[in-house]
């Protein structure tokens, strides 16, 4: 078996936005003193005149992005997820969401896998915040390939988009030749009959690992990658609900308001079946190496598999 390649989705973002920047002069990238960390420094190096470092002032950065968008620019605003969506939530809601401006918010360092910086920097609430804004598209790519496709799709789409990215290197999993990214369209990665694991972001690779472990224990699990949390692919979720009658959601985010909630809302509306939400259980994270944290909070493949088996035993 070939070695698994791991790339942090923030790295993929830096490359993707630079490539897009070569094609489209109206792209402007904004940062709040974190260009090295968000990896937009790659863009800055090539297009210094189209990179605006706003300093440590996220609210202002979002407002400037809105102003640029009214004048036909396509701003990509970046910071850590905590500050981009938390600090500047109301600016995003009122200055970007309400006028439905063409602003792309690409936030890195989302979730527990920020690691050593600890709870203040580990944003497990951003999906909930962003998906509650009318008209906001919310994308959580699972790997390098999906991130690059998502950034391009976000550019091509007219309207506000939130893309959630990570600091931690994650396996490249979307290597199928027929891989194609369509906003709002989930991807079935594995078919099963006993339980459906619906995952997003880095939890997609944990879900694939978990499905292997489950198979070894006689449990046949589907794995669906929901990269677009909003608008969510209702069809693929309802199809899984009808088929297996049991859904597990997996996300590196609070179980309140994120993928789990979006999936539960969908099956609740259309075909109610039990939904077991796996994620951060209404708790803050803590400092530590990312891989260790994933294990501790049960978000690695084994932890997820154990959790699913315990739930299925009821």
């Amino acid at each position, binding site marked *: 078996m070939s070695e698994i390649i791991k790339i942090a989705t923030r790295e993929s973002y830096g490359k993707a936005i630079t490539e897009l920047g070569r094609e489209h002069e109206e792209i402007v990238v904004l940062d709040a003193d974190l260009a090295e960390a968000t990896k937009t420094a790659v863009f800055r190096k090539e297009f210094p005149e189209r990179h605006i470092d706003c300093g440590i002032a996220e609210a202002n950065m979002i*407002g400037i992005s809105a*102003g640029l968008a009214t004048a036909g620019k396509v701003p990509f605003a970046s910071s850590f997820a905590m500050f981009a969506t938390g600090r500047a939530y109301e600016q995003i809601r*009122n*200055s970007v969401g309400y*006028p439905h401006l063409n602003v792309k918010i690409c936030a890195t360092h989302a979730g527990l896998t920020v690691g050593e910086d600890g709870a203040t920097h580990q944003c497990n609430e951003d999906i909930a915040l962003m998906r509650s804004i009318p008209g906001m598209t919310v994308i959580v790519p699972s790997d390098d390939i999906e991130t690059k496709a998502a950034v391009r799709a976000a550019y091509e789409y007219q309207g506000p988009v939130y893309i959630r990215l990570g600091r931690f290197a994650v396996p490249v999993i979307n290597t199928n030749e027929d891989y194609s990214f369509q906003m709002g369209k989930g991807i079935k990665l594995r078919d099963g009959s006993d339980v459906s694991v619906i995952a997003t972001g880095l939890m997609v690779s944990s879900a694939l690992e978990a499905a292997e472990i489950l198979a070894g224990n006689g449990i046949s699990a589907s794995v669906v990658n929901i990269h677009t949390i909003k608008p969510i692919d209702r069809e693929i979720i309802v199809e899984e609900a009808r088929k297996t009658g049991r859904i597990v959601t997996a996300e590196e985010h609070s179980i309140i308001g994120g993928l789990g909630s979006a999936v539960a809302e969908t099956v609740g509306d259309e075909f109610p079946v039990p939904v077991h939400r796996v994620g951060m259980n209404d708790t803050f994270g803590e400092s530590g190496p990312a891989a260790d944290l994933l294990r501790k909070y049960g978000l690695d493949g084994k932890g997820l598999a154990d959790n699913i088996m315990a739930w299925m035993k009821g």
Partner: protein
Amino acid sequence: MITDELKKTATEIRKNILIATHAAKSGHPGGSLSAADIFAYLYFEEMNIDPENPDDPDRDRFVLSKGHTAPGLYSALALRGYFPVEDLKTLRHIGSPLQGHPAMDHVKGVDMSSGSLGQGLSVACGMAMAAKLSGKTYRTYCLVGDGELQEGQIWEAAMFAGSRKLDNLVVIVDNNDLQIDGRVGDICSPYPIDEKFKAFGFFVIKVRDGNDLEQLEPAFEEAASLKGKPTVIICRTVKGKGVSFMEDQAGWHGKAPNDEQLAQALAELG
């Protein structure tokens, strides 16, 4: 030159602010009236705009950061020909494009949605940056309230504008000295406003009476000539200006006139 016609326009804006808020039975006449002369000067004298081509990429931009004074902006836009003056009576009514606070995708001529205080100046900075990036010569104007200066985001934006030397940006402070809870200096003083903006890298122009068009004209002319830094024009105004019982009264910040009060106010304005 300030013509009688422009003065009449400022009075018409005032009357329509009162008519609109009366029809809405709510809204913000006080701060709309204090800024009525500023609206008149901007929309009828200063800005390079064309109601027939409201989306012209080269037009001057205006951001009403103190968005609650939408009745003033809407009145100026209607009188300038963006939509029928008669529509002002639909202000805040269900189904009307004239939302309680300006919504850019509802009303032609509104360059930015606003209403949550503190956010407009950042947006204006973005518009000014876009002009610089595209080599366009349009100018961006942003009207902020003096109470609004208590919002931290204003100073984030001011720091950015000064740091980037956005000399295509003009900030206008409607310094009527009142906010909902009282005198701005008593609640949480933004003074000295001039020294603050100066420290943030602005040219500062002070207008002793911002309700006097004759004084606004030289201020805006001077602003147009200044290069290398953004400009702030601090206009000392009177809240509720032009209506005796509303003048300098915090109570008229967000209250509409009733039938009698409207009749009296319109009679006073002549």
